[in-house]
């Protein structure tokens, strides 16, 4: 016989363990949330799924013209297009997950006020939705690598790079989501902040370029931006570009952001229905 579930409600709210256990059991809910996002996204669009291809391609065209043709930022010994695309697809995924999970509590408030469900499933569903676009971008990237006859042996790096990137994006997103319950201003800041971060991150240029601007004893500061170290690692494995000794700072920052994000998100969840 199935053991009947037991819940104890106290003023303390959900513990981390409860939140985690419930997230593990929310497989079907996750699937449905992802399906809903995808379906709604392409509903009544003419190009439909092709938009997923359109975004990395236009992004690539823009950075190609701006950074390569106009600014002439050529990474040493690497063809520019696959170099830039590798950064772009990871960056796009990062900014999508960040923006979506930062807005998740406010966007879903109608549901949150009326029904109990494992709320960690909301940012997680955004991670899954974003993976579709990332997959399309990745296919494009592999195509480019083959076209330029570059080795694919460094692809293993995607596993740690993706994990760290998602930890940073979802972590920061959840943290901002929790703050924006009280201060909606945060929602106004996010697009602006993301845009600034794009220029500070070595997406369209090599990490060494940023390094050449900073003094020798301040190099590590640059890697407080989680995406800086992640992209540095990515390019090291894929194109054999130099790896900064400070890249691991970014990984530490990423996973600290995740921990901080989860804790503040679960705390916010408790007060949410009374505040929103």
């Amino acid at each position, binding site marked *: 016989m199935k053991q009947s579930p*037991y819940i104890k*409600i106290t*003023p303390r709210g959900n513990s981390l363990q409860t939140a985690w256990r419930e997230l593990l059991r929310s497989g079907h809910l996750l*699937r*449905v*949330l992802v399906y809903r996002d995808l379906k709604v996204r392409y509903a009544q669009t003419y190009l439909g799924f092709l938009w997923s291809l359109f975004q990395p391609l236009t992004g690539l065209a823009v950075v190609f013209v701006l950074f390569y043709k106009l600014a002439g930022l050529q990474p040493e010994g690497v063809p520019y297009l696959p170099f830039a695309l590798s950064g772009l697809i990871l960056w796009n995924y990062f900014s999508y997950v960040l923006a979506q999970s930062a807005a998740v509590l406010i966007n879903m408030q109608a549901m949150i006020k009326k*029904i109990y469900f494992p709320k960690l499933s909301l940012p997680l569903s955004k991670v899954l939705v974003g993976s579709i676009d990332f997959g399309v971008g990745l296919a494009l990237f592999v195509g480019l690598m083959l076209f330029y006859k570059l080795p694919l042996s460094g692809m293993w790096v995607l596993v740690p790079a993706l994990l760290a990137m998602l930890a940073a994006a979802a972590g920061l997103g959840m943290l901002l989501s929790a703050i924006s319950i009280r201060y909606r201003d945060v929602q106004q800041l996010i697009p602006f902040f993301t845009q600034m971060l794009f220029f500070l991150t070595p997406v369209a240029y090599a990490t060494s370029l940023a390094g050449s601007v900073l003094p020798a004893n301040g190099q590590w500061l640059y890697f407080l931006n989680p995406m800086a170290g992640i992209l540095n690692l990515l390019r090291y494995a894929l194109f054999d570009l130099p790896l900064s000794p400070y890249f691991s700072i970014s990984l530490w920052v990423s996973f600290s952001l995740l921990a901080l994000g989860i804790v503040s998100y679960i705390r916010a969840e408790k007060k949410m*229905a*009374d505040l929103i």
Partner: protein
Amino acid sequence: MSTAIDIQNLSKIYFIKEAGGKKEFTALDRLNLRIPHGKVLGLIGQNGAGKSTLLKILSRITYPSAGTVEISGRLASLLEVGTGFHPELSGRENVFLNGAILGMQRREIAARFDEIVDFAGIQKFIDTPVKHYSSGMYVRLAFSVAAHLSSDILLVDEVLAVGDAEFQRKCLGKMDEATKVGGRTVVFVSHNLRAVRDLCDEVVWLEEGRIKQKGSARSVCNAYLASLKSRAKHVPLREREDREGLGRTTFHKLWWQTPNRDLLISGAPATLCAQYESKHAEPLTNLSLRLNIYSSEGAFLTSLSNENSGFNLERAKGNGTLKCTLEKLPLLKGSYSLTVNLYANGELQDRVRQALLFEVEEGDFFGSGQVKQRKNEGIEIPQVWASEQNQQAT
């Protein structure tokens, strides 16, 4: 019997931000309540008595300020139907979406899918995006998903106030079936005392966050009704504080006018007068006044509505009196209560439940000269009888 829900010393305090700082509001005050498995418990009480707060805590939408609740069994709560419905998705997709949000597994929804669609009666439109549904269809589908939830404990808040009367009855039937056959525990919050009495084994009457009375459905509902009536009798309408709505225009007095020394007689003419007062300089536009008549047991009988009878109230400013004349009062002998609802442009301005209590005397509604005593309160309908005999060949 084992305990499904055990509530101990439960308190909830809200902090309301005001111009001068924070104000405390105690929604629940050290509440203790034990609900055994398989019981259907009704929660009644005025607005602000703590019913909804209690349901919200039980459904884990909000957390208590003090005290604990222990719940054993799978719990599903229905504080609103159609939570998470998305207009762009089809009926079929929304059933799966909504079911998942309410905590059902995919195979459970799949197994009951046909039953859900049948119950809602929208087979033909199941693959149409719900944005093309009428509001009635939407609500029926949403409720149907909820009604087919599989859980040991079900929390229901007033959702039955939606949908047409026939569908409401169907839903009540479904809930009744679920509790009798399925042995489910149900906590049911409603203003519909008739439904509460029909469905619940036990009723808890909440007042100011505390249990005022607890016991059999009949006795508690009767005590609650009596208290409402005494309020209606002893507190003049203009001083009533248990109002809902924006309150830009409120009703100050309600009374019947009849040619027979203000005695209401079944079948005789009667005029209902409603005096209103506006606080706002801006006139209200597009008014809809609904006066709902209930039996003494709280069952809805009919309503007097300017909108439905085709009398347009474009604007109201300042003070005045609205009059609604019934040429033949169609009510049987008995006691009735009246709830007043005023909407302006679809926004609720004023609602007072049990705003007026009145008695109707025996009368000859049909003018037939024959008046048979009848026990219940109810409505007379003009009717014509005929008898046709089949000619038999001999």
